[in-house]
Every structure is written in C-alpha cells, then in structure tokens.
C-alpha cells in the first residue's frame, strides 16, 4: 500500500527534501552562470568579426551534439586528470559531484540558450541596428540600447522553455552521484525496497515545477506579445 507517512516524516522524507533542495540549487546556479555566458556567445555569433563568429559557432555545435550524460562523465571522471595534483585534491574535498554537474549543465544549457538569444536578436529588423549605428552608437551600445530591449520579447519564451529543459536535465547528474532528487529517490528505493513512494515524490516534484515553468511561459506570451514590425 501507499505509505504516505514515509514521505511526510522521518529520515527518508529528509533525504528526499535534501535532494529536491539540491536540484533546485543546481537549477538556480546553472541559470545564473548560463545566462550571461549565452548572451556573450550570442553576441560573438552576431559580431562582425569572422573569427569570433567561428569560435562561438564551434562551441555551440560541439556542445549541443554530445549528450549531457557524456558531458557529465567527462567533467567528473576525465577532467580532473588534466588538472594539477593540488587542484584535484582540493576539488575532491569540496563536493566535486556538484561542481562537475554544475560545469556540465552550465556549458550544455548556455549552448542552447545562445542560439535562442541569437535568433531573438535576428528577429529585430536589421534597419534598427543600422539606424543605431548611423546615429553614431557603437556595436555594443546599439545592442544594449536599441536591439536587445526589442529582442527580449521574442527571446524570453524560448529561454523559459530552455529553463524547463534545464530543470529536467538536472536529473542526469545522478549518473556521477550528485545527491540531487533522482539520486535520493533511487537511494530511498534501495533502502526501503519501496519504489512507489519515492518515485511518486520525485515525479510530482519534477512535474509540478515543469508545469509551473510552462505556465510562466504561457503567461509571458499573453502579457508580452511580439509586436508586429511594420
């Protein structure tokens, strides 16, 4: 039978809640790191310089065409070997599972977000950029004052759905032993031989926040519709 008390009190409840907290922390930290990085990448992709453009393009393609799981395995098992001994020791002493997961998630998410931001910026007609430049503003100033504020309306909805993807992707950190929600659910399953309760908890948590994020996206599209360009 479904044992609700398992989820509401006791050590297993604490484990699951700790997992949920870490998942949410991963979501927040990744967003905080990935958003500026993806904006930088998108600007590089649009910059007049060919070299910068190629660098950002390679980054995006290299990251997007490799599964997140392989990123995680690399950052956790592979990358430390390339670092000096002392740095490695320090990392292993400081919750390296979470750090590696954060690295993988940030790089992966920023590649997707960069493309969304880029297509949002490109949706703003080129004359806006030209007009800004003709008035004597620099490339970055034109971006900041003229193009980006207009691009925001087009860009926010896809960024919200990338956030949803990110939320689901945090579960893959299980593979390197990051103690997030999925990991804790599996651990409770092993400890209690009950799969139903911990999995219901995890599913409800994932689904709940996913629906919330989806709702947020729909709300934004309703309140901030894209203005038609004449």
């Amino acid at each position, binding site marked *: 039978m479904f044992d609700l008390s398992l989820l509401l009190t006791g050590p297993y409840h604490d484990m699951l809640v700790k997992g949920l907290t870490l998942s949410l922390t991963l979501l927040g930290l990744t967003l905080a790191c990935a958003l500026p990085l993806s904006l930088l990448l998108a600007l590089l992709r649009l910059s007049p310089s060919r070299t910068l453009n190629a660098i950002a393009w390679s980054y995006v393609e290299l990251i997007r065409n490799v*599964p997140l799981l*392989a990123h995680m395995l690399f950052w956790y098992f592979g990358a430390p070997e390339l670092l000096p001994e002392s740095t490695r020791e320090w990392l292993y002493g400081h919750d390296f599972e979470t750090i590696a997961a954060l690295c993988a998630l940030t790089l992966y998410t920023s590649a997707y977000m960069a493309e969304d931001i880029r297509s949002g910026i490109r949706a703003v007609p080129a004359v806006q950029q030209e007009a800004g430049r003709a008035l004597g503003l620099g490339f970055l100033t034109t971006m900041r004052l003229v193009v980006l504020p207009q691009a925001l309306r087009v860009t926010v909805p896809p960024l919200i759905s990338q956030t949803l993807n990110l939320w689901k992707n945090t579960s893959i950190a299980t593979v390197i032993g990051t103690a997030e929600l999925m990991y804790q659910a599996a651990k409770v399953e092993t400890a209690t031989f009950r799969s139903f309760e911990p999995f219901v908890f995890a599913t409800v948590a994932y689904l709940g926040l*996913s*629906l919330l994020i*989806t709702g947020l996206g*729909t709300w934004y599209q309703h309140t901030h519709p894209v203005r038609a360009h004449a």
Partner: protein
Amino acid sequence: MSYLDMLDTYWLFYLVGQYPNGPLGGLSLTLILASAALVLALPLGAVVGICRVSPWRIVRWPVTALVFVVRGTPLLMVVFWAYFFLPSLTGVKTGQLPTMLMALVLFDAAYLAEIVRAGLQSLPKGQTEAARALGLSYLATMRLVLLPQSLRHMLPSLVNQFVSTIKETSLGYIIGLTEVAFIASQINTQVFTLPAQVYLTLAFTYFVLCFGLSRVAYRLERRLSTRRPAPPPSPALHNPLGQPT
C-alpha cells in the same frame, strides 16, 4: 598503456560490445536502439498528434494531458518507473533493453506528436475546407490531403528528433544497458590511466554522429524552403513545452 594501444585493444569492444560471444553492445546497440525507438514511436506519435488537433474534446483532452505529463517529466524518471516499478506490478523483471526501448518510444511519441501537430497546423485552413467541400470525411481529409503535405514539412524535424533520440539512448548507462557510454566507462575501468581520453573519444563519437545528422536536417530544410514559397511568418508560434533533452 598509450592512447593508441587502447584504441587497438578496445575498438571492437567499443563498436559491438561482447558480440558474438555475448549480447550486442557498444555503438551498434546505440544506433539500433535509437532507430528502433524512432520507427516504433512514429506511428504512435502520428496518432497522438492527430488526436491533439482533433475537433472532439473527448479525444483531445486526455491526449493533451498525456503529452504534458510526458514532456514535463525527465526521461530518466520514466526509465526509473519502468525499470524499478514495473516489475513489482507484473512480477517479471524487465530487461534493460526492453525497458529503455519502451521509455524511449513513449518519450519520442510525445515529442513527435508535437511535430505532427505543428506540421498539421502550419497548413492553410483552405486545404481542410476544400477537401471537406469535396465530400471527403474528416479521416479521409487527414489521410489523403493534410498528412501527405505536412510530412514534407516535418522531414527536417524528424531527422533532428533522431539526433535527440541518439543522445537520449545514453541514459541507458544508468540502468546498466551496454550502449556506447556504458562500454566507454567499462573500458575506462579496465585501462584506468586514461579517463580524459576515453571520455573525449566518447564525446567525439557522439559528435560525429549527431553533427552529421543535423547537417542533413539543415540541408533538407534548405531544399524544402527553396522548392516552395516560404510559409507566412508566424509571430510567437513558440511552443512553451520545451524541446527534448
């Protein structure tokens, strides 16, 4: 052991696993699993997609709910349900391969359904009206007029979905399915001294496959858009449900 020694020793293991002395694994299993999942998910996705645009609420609502639930949960969650919980219902332990295949088919069908739906909704309304005016029934209109046209639009998205599916098969690693990521970590355990090289090779393998395929999708998209007039711009036709991960 140098990197080249490792390649020399393990390349066959990497490609086919223990086959023919054991079950097929490695890169070939990844490819077979991804293809099988997509082929099986296609008809299911088409049915679900058609139900999503159905004029009858009784058909539309449950299917919409299913799509929302599947797209709102991580694939890993579906895999865990199938792997740990299903046996306690049926009494039989499901193998890793059927488990992963089932999870992928269910997952892909939900995403393909959205591709089918978008394909159908991108057609001008006049197509349906003309077919209905000619006396075709709803289903005949679907089968003879709408689906053949929207399939053309969908082709690039289908290739992209295949790329996603290949990436998703890597989750089989977590339940011990011997696909290429699992094999790579086994090789890593045996060699022990070259973790960075092993995992970079794994990443490179996925990259070659997925990048190659996404170029094919890109080419297809360009060919389709040059052959027919571009569809009218559709502002804010963004799908808030997100993409496959």
